[in-house]
Every structure is written in structure tokens, then in C-alpha cells.
């Protein structure tokens, strides 16, 4: 057991941090614009291919390294299609788009949501007859950046994966009827593996957002005065900041551990669900308290803390929320007795 970053991981973190600071743009509420410059810079670092084998064009590192990068994105509060690229690349397997995706020459995103349907990792309303798809995917992340798409559909032989090179979007909506799609080698297990990786990366991004939200809050309590004294003289605020720190460190342990777990067991769905629950609870707690402890300023778009809360909310609603994952876990709790985390 060791939760500390290696020297290589620290070097990677610093390189990612540096790239982010060079290409950072101010967030705009409700508009998740894909930061292409940053994404290309990450590609140059090899960050888009971190967890993939070298012979496939990846870096031969693993989920831990990808997590290190995602954590920095969350901490800085920038938006770029990082988890999406790695999730899509996993689903693409040996498809021709894979190389372009991890090199950063073509933006590819996963299209896994169905409009007005709760999260489901398997397609329900999207079907394939040969290469002809029907159904709707919405919202597709970063649709405004005109990405290629990899999606899933129910086929006669189970869940199929399909690549779409040049889809046409209406807003964030992708109507699949009549779209030219190419079936990719891979089944439900590969989709789940991709979602597992994606969930880890979003969780790491959430962890970074929590870290920054707490940091901003602590600095605000130190500097801002009310009734003639700094806010940190008000014990009801400092005790709540302590609870935020507690939530943060619990989430950190869970995210680091999931990264280590996926490195050896990429299909470990139960670990993914547990992490999503822990991060979901911590993220909601920290996001809400960060705004409350800031007061009005926390509500403004000029100030970073609200954007972190918005991002935490978005991540909570991606790939299954706390309730979804608790239900998934609940179905299995009778199958074992004590937890065992160290084996």
C-alpha cells in the first residue's frame, strides 16, 4: 500500500500544470467550450494516450497517470475533452480513429446519454440493424466543437460499438437515423471498461475542483472581514471548513485507490460505484458549503468558486449519480460479509 505519487508522476503533474496555466481561459457559465489549445498541448505531452499500450500508440502508463492529469484540470477549473478523449479511445479499441484521438489530431467523444432517460451504461433507445442506427443521443459532450463520436447501440448480438466520423449535431443532439456509422470491435465489457476509466477521470477532476473550492474558501475566511474581524473568527464557519476538509480527504483516498485498482482490475465495477458515491457526497457537500461560506461573491461568474460547484454538479450527473451507484451496490451487499480493501 502506498498512496504517494512517484517522481515520474510528480513530473507529469507539473508538466500538466504548466500546460494548463499557459492555455487557461476564463470559464463561462453553462458553456462547456472545448479548449482546443490546451487539449493539443496535453496531446503533445502524451497525456491523451497515457493509459494505452505503447504498441497501440499510447504511452504505456496507466490510470494513475491519467488521474494525475485530470486532477490538475479540476484544480484549475478548465474545460477540455480529456476524460472524453480517453473514454472514447478505450471504446475505439483497434478502430482507425483511435490513433487520431490519442494523438490529438481528431477530437472524438463518447455519445452515451439518451435524452430524458436516467443514466444507463447500456443503450435502450438506440438500435442498430447492421451499420444502420436509429435513436437519439443527447446531450453529446462538446458537440459545438464538431467532434467525431463513438456510441453504442443494441444489436442482434448484444451491445455494439459504433464510430461516426462526421456527425451532424443539432445543438447537443445527435439523431442517429441515416448517419453513416462504422461498427467497432468490442462488446459491453469494453464499454464498461471505458466508462470505468471515464468515471475515474471525472472523479479525479472533481477532487481537484473540491481542493480548489476549499482552498478559495479558506483564503476568503482569512481575508474577508465582517463586523470588524476576519470571518475566521466565526467558529461556526471554521468548524464547517473543517468538515469540508474531512470530505475532501475522504474523496482523495477513494480516488487514488480507484486509480490503483483500475490499473490492475480495469473491470472492477464495484470499486467504480463506491468511488462515485464517495466523490458524489463529498462534492455536493464541498460545492454547496464553498458557496455558502463565501456568501454573495460565491454566486458570481467572475469568481471561481461557483464554477467549481457547477462542475461538481455536472460530474455528479455524469455516468450515474450517487443514488444510481448506491442502488447498484445495494443489489450486491448480501453477497459478502466484511469489506476487505487491502487484498
Amino acid at each position, binding site marked *: 500500500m502506498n498512496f504517494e505519487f512517484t517522481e515520474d508522476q510528480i513530473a507529469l503533474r507539473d508538466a500538466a500544470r504548466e500546460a494548463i496555466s499557459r492555455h487557461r481561459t476564463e470559464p463561462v457559465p*453553462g458553456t462547456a467550450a472545448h479548449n482546443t489549445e490546451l487539449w493539443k498541448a496535453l496531446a503533445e505531452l502524451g497525456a491523451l494516450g497515457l493509459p494505452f499500450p505503447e504498441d497501440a500508440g499510447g504511452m504505456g502508463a496507466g490510470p494513475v497517470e491519467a488521474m494525475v492529469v485530470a486532477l490538475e484540470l479540476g484544480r484549475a477549473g478548465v474545460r477540455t475533452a480529456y476524460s472524453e478523449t480517453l473514454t472514447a479511445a478505450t471504446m475505439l479499441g483497434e478502430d482507425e480513429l483511435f490513433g487520431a484521438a490519442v494523438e490529438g489530431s481528431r477530437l472524438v467523444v463518447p455519445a452515451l*446519454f439518451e435524452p430524458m432517460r436516467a443514466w444507463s451504461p447500456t443503450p435502450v433507445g438506440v438500435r442498430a440493424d447492421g451499420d444502420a442506427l436509429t435513436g437519439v443521443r443527447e446531450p453529446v459532450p462538446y458537440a459545438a466543437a464538431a467532434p467525431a463520436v463513438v456510441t453504442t447501440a443494441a444489436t442482434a448480438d448484444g451491445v455494439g460499438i459504433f464510430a461516426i466520423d462526421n456527425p451532424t449535431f443539432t445543438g447537443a443532439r445527435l439523431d442517429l437515423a441515416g448517419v453513416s456509422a462504422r461498427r467497432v470491435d468490442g462488446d459491453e465489457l469494453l464499454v464498461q471498461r471505458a466508462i470505468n476509466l471515464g468515471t475515474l477521470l471525472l472523479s479525479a477532476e472533481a477532487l481537484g475542483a473540491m481542493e480548489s473550492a476549499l482552498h478559495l474558501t479558506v483564503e476568503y475566511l482569512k481575508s474577508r472581514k465582517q463586523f470588524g474581524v476576519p470571518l475566521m473568527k*466565526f467558529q461556526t*464557519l471554521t468548524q464547517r471548513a473543517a468538515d469540508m476538509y474531512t470530505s475532501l480527504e475522504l474523496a482523495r483516498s477513494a480516488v487514488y485507490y480507484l486509480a490503483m485498482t483500475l490499473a490492475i482490475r480495469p473491470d472492477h465495477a464495484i470499486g467504480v460505484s463506491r468511488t462515485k458515491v464517495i466523490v458524489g457526497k463529498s462534492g455536493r457537500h464541498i460545492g454547496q458549503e464553498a458557496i455558502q461560506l463565501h*456568501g454573495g461573491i460565491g454566486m458570481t461568474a467572475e469568481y471561481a468558486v*461557483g464554477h467549481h460547484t457547477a462542475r461538481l*454538479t455536472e460530474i455528479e*450527473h455524469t455516468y450515474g449519480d450517487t443514488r444510481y451507484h*448506491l442502488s447498484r451496490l445495494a443489489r450486491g451487499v448480501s453477497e459478502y460479509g466484511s469489506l476487505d480493501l487491502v487484498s
Partner: protein
Amino acid sequence: MQRGLSPEDEQFRAEMREFFTTAIPQDIRDKVAAGTELSKEDFERSHRIMHEAGLAVPHWPAEWGGKNWSDLQRYIYLDEMQLANVPAPLAFNANMIGPVIATFGSQTMKERFLPPTASLDIWWCQGFSEPESGSDLASLRTTAVLDGDEYVVNGQKTWTTLGQHADWIFALVRTNPAAERQQQGISMLLIPMDAPGVTLRPIQLIDGGHEVNEVFFDNVRVPAAQLVGEENRGWDYAKFLLGNERVGVAPTGWIKRKLAAAKEYAAAVASGDGHLIDDPVIAARIAELECDLIALELTVLRVAANSHGGKPDPASSILKLRGSELQQDVLEFIADIAGPSSLSWDLDAESAIADWAHNATPVYLNFRKASIYGGSNEVQRQVISTGILGLKG
């Protein structure tokens, strides 16, 4: 003890329901239901219809348009209004400056301002908070110095809600910097927004909306006749203004409507072979929120029914605190119901996602303000612990 409404109040309720569900245009009520931002013109249309029906300022003194209703009737009026998705008469007019002028203003001031305030021919905004004066309002720094028969105002206000639509602002200003206690040197002035030296800067919020503003005063000259009541008594008027609403501080009708909507939403979002509402955990959460709401609404009713002779029930002190918590809980739940469909905020005519789901996250984020403004929840708890429980911190 007596449960239920008297026949007269039942009749009153039926009239209110009839009015709000028929007289106010459907397009405005649909926007409110979906959480879409209202235009200035929407507010005005709705307010003026209520005004023409004599229902914009029913709690004012009778001679200025009031109705002499009981607190219970006022509760019914607000409840039916909120249930029908009707935007309330502009609070700055109806609930804030109107009652202050009616109570403390000179006869001249009343005659000049009350009729256009009631009819929304003047749109008011509030100039209380300053960048360095949030919960500690009494530390405000905007100054007003008498020069002849005019005050010269300098300083800055912030969090001025809907100030972009406003014709006038009622502002707290410091007229006596030497007063022994900060609170004693404050006055309330009425200032036209188009007066030379007044500028307004919009503040964008995290939901992307523009509902609050900064207001700057640079040597703005204000006739002394626009001083409310007496000089240096502004703090009393502000306290009156913030404390004069007993019944409406917890928007239970609004919450009730949102919670009923949440059920519809949960029945509209597919999940597995059925819908989210079929999940026992979701249904239990709805039941719990309904219980929370019932406890709050019964407390509103208790306070309304027990308020006679002007002495409020101490339980009224919990209404703002609990009301904002529950508003936030319900909106969080709706955002969770929307789930991945909440990830895009854009209203697009061709979207397969309902407007409420597109709006779920911005509305959730926007209402984080509910526990901050109008006396943050921390201030509310302080009021309870000090004022009700006698815990002198």
C-alpha cells in the same frame, strides 16, 4: 384548536385560485413553471393585472390599496399565487419600499410615491448591501452630505436585484459618520436611477443569468424631500422593511408546486423498463420532501393563525431558514432527476430534452442564493439563538 378553513376563507381561496389561474397570461405562468427567466415586460404585465384587480398590495393600509386581510388570508393569497406559477408583485415595490413609505413617509411623499409604486409605474430597486458590508449591513460606507437642500451621495451598492429594470432606488446612506453607534448615522434616500452620477454595472451569476448589479454613486445630488422619514433613522426603517413580512418569508406554495412538478418529472424520465418514479428510493425521497414541506407549511399556518395583536409567534423565526433549505433541497432533487439530461443548459427548439431539464442545473445553482440573501442562514440562526433562546453569544 381548529383544523381547516372557515367557509369564508374557503370561498376566498376559491376566488384567489380562479383569479390566478385565469387572469394571469398562460405564457408567463409557463415560463415560471419551467424556471425560465422573465422579461421586464412579463413582470409588468403580471403586476399590472394584479394591480387592476386590487391584488398587488393587499397588505398595505386600506387608503393606499390594502385589503385588511388576516394573516391567514394573506397566506392563502400567496399560496394560490405560487401554486399557479404567478410571479409575485414586485417585492421591492409591494413588500419593501411601499410599506416603509406608507408607515414612515410624509403625506406628500405618500401621495407622490405610493400610487405609482402600487401600479409599478415606478420600478424600485434596493440599495442596501455594499462590497464590504454583507451580513454586517451597519458598516455601510456610502455617504450622503447635505448641501443646501440637496444630499450629495457618493459610494457603491451591490447585489441590486433587477436594478437594470429600475426607475428608482431606495438606498441606505451614511448621513452622520460621527454617530456613537454605526446604526445611528444611517438614513434612507429615494434616488432616480437616471440621476446624473448614477451608474449601473451588471454582475453575471454562476447560472449565467443577469439579475443583480452594482450601483455606483458619484456626487449624485438628491433633493432633501426624497429623504424617507427622519434623518439618521434609516436603520429602523430598514429593520422594519426586512421584518414586516411574517407570512411570505417561506415560499411554501412555490415549493409545493416544484415538488408536485418533481413528481411529474420523475414520471417523465425513463429508467430501466419504467421511470424514475418507480424507484423506491426516489419515491421515498419525494415522500420525505413532502413531510419536510408539510412541517414547514403547518408552521407557516400556525404562525399566520396565531398572529393577532401584532406579536408574532416566535416560531416565525424559523421560516426563512427552513424555507430556503427546503427550496434548495427540492431544486437539488429536480437536478438529480434530470440527471444527464441536465448537462446541456441550452434551450434549443429541436432538443429532445424538456426545458425544465435544461434549466435544472442553472436553477439549482441560482437558488444557492436563497440561503445567503435577505439575512443568510447563519444570521437567521443567530436571530433564533439570541432572540428566541436567549443565548447571548
